């Protein structure tokens, strides 16, 4: 099947061919955004503290986007992504400490190891649908945490690993590396969603069996997404290690950390392209705001947010944005959220009274019943 080519010719007569799913204007907007963020700290008078926090936020945005590939695009909610975050972080830290590798090599290596680890436990468990997969991820996360804490030779045990100061990039410089990380994550988010892979994932999401009939190999596509997600989160772990210069297993692999990825994606808009990134920003802003004044309320606040979002606007911020834009005549595409969470904003009713649903045939998919053994 061929797809038509579009050529973009610039004034200098160079013909650049862009794939059909990448409109020129999106590329330009993306490049402009990156350039702006790149130059901003050099031009604007931001304090050192804010600068550092923004750099770290870039990393969280990248991690949240990566989680969203699995949780939003594929629809499998992972409660154990901290396992990859920690794996990437510790591999990177170990490489920097023991072999003295430059930080970006260590991050990439950490990311790849994390991606492979994700494939290791994920390939067999992705067959499971719905909550059983999520439960499995909880098991993976916890087991990883316990084993990592025990494996003190590699992770330093509960004492963790300390990177020598001055050995890697400073927090100041990490702003830019975080930006690059984010750029890659945004690019991949867009590509995964809009290209043929995205189409395939969407088909799998809607009806796995029908997709199979059309030649879409669910397993292969899910594995690709899982690997990419694990790798990106692993690289973020390496970033975090360089940023904090001290990491320990209890913190890196904690259940709370896995939860934070979920919260960011859900708050922003699970399944949308950039929602997770927006959610990460909100997450950090809330943290910063609560930190000084109402630190003992943050759990309840996140909980209330989650409840409100699920009940009223499953697409979170993105859903709210869509509602606002609808007032100005914007009509959202039905596939704006590649996920099981359909939102009223997009026109499909998420709620029905259980009275009618009680009569409708209910899909009670038990684990492993997906079709193949």
């Amino acid at each position: 099947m061929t797809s038509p080519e579009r050529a973009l010719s610039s004034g200098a007569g160079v013909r650049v061919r862009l794939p059909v799913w990448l409109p020129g204007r999106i590329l330009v907007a993306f490049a402009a955004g990156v350039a702006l963020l790149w130059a901003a700290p050099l031009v604007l008078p931001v304090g050192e503290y804010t600068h550092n926090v923004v750099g770290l936020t870039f990393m969280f945005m990248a991690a949240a986007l990566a989680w969203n590939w699995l949780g939003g695009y594929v629809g499998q909610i992972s409660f154990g992504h901290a396992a990859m975050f920690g794996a990437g972080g510790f591999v990177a830290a170990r490489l920097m400490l023991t072999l003295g590798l430059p930080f970006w090599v260590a991050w990439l290596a950490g990311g790849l190891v994390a991606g492979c680890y994700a494939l290791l436990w994920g390939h067999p468990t992705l067959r499971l649908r719905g909550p059983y997969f999520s439960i499995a991820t909880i098991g993976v996360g916890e087991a990883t945490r316990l084993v990592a804490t025990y494996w003190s030779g590699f992770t330093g045990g509960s004492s963790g690993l300390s990177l020598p100061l001055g050995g890697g990039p400073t927090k100041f410089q990490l702003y830019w590396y975080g930006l690059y990380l984010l750029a890659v994550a945004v690019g991949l988010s867009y590509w995964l969603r809009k290209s043929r892979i995205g189409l395939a994932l969407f088909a799998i999401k809607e009806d796995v069996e029908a997709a199979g009939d059309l030649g879409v190999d669910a397993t292969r596509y899910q594995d690709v997404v899982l690997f990419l997600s694990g790798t990106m989160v692993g690289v973020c772990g390496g970033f975090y290690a360089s940023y904090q210069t001290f990491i320990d297993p209890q913190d890196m692999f904690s259940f709370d950390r896995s939860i934070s990825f979920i919260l960011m994606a859900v708050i922003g808009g699970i399944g949308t392209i950039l929602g997770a990134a927006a959610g990460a920003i909100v997450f950090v802003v809330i943290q910063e705001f609560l930190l000084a004044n109402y630190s003992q309320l943050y759990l309840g606040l996140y909980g209330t947010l989650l409840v409100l979002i699920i009940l009223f606007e499953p697409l979170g911020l993105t859903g709210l944005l869509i509602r606002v834009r609808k007032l100005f005549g914007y009509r959202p595409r039905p596939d704006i959220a590649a996920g099981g969470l359909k939102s009223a904003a997009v026109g499909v009713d998420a709620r029905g009274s259980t009275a009618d649903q009680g009569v409708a045939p209910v899909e009670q998919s038990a684990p492993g019943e997906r079709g193949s053994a």
Partner: protein
Amino acid sequence: MAEALTLAVSAVLLAGFYAAMAYGLGLIYGVLRIVNLAHGGIIMAGAYLTWQLFTRFHVDPYLAIPVVLVVFFLVGVTIYYCLVRFLPRGPAGAVQSLLLLFGVWLIIRNLAYLLFTGNDQAIRTTYSTSSVSILGASYSLNRLLVFGISLVALIALHLFLTRTYSGKAIRAAGQNLESCTLVGINVERVYVLTFGLGTALAGLAGLLASTLFAFNPSFGAGELLKSFVIIVLGGLGSVVGIASGAVVLASAEVFSIYAVPSYLTSAVGFVLLVVVLVLRPGGLFGQKVLR
């Protein structure tokens, strides 16, 4: 050999507590197909309620069982009416219910922090450290009582589900929803009842936990995870299946000390969980629906 026997008894006693932990989660999932992530929070709340009754009104924990059951039944009904009722059923609802109930858990945790601070609390009765001699070895009286209550709950639950109309209605809803309405079962009422009952059982587990362990608002996460392991291991065939899963998990944890260092025995459960999910998604006993 004598030590192995002692360990076996310890494993069974532990299984009693574990089973009590898992009944509520299993019931709700078996019927509503909802993973109650607030389960851990309810267990913690149950522990705190028991503790308050003990310290303020000097009510012995075991005598507080009826109070705790009633209170948490009402709590469950409330959560259902205010929140869970609005979720779509089926696969789409699964994801949403996960997240919604997780949010509820966070709220409960925060409430506990605000009311009681993060300090560890413990209940000590006159018999907290008493022991009972069985076959020459000594065992904790408390653990025996917990086991006993769990067994009673098991029997009561089983009888309820098999002998009473409501119980059978619950099982029917878990098996085949369409047919339920055909025979005139009010599905909505069944859901309310199930959720309330599941929450009440979680509260009971919290009560039992409070007699054995110290607790703080973070309590419950580990219990939640282990409850998952149990319902996966035992399948959702019946409450007896859940109890069997509990025995398997407890035995694995206790006896694995012969194979792995003591620290890793707690990881055994999670590894077992993943392995079983991958190899036998229907649980060790091959059941998929609540019979």
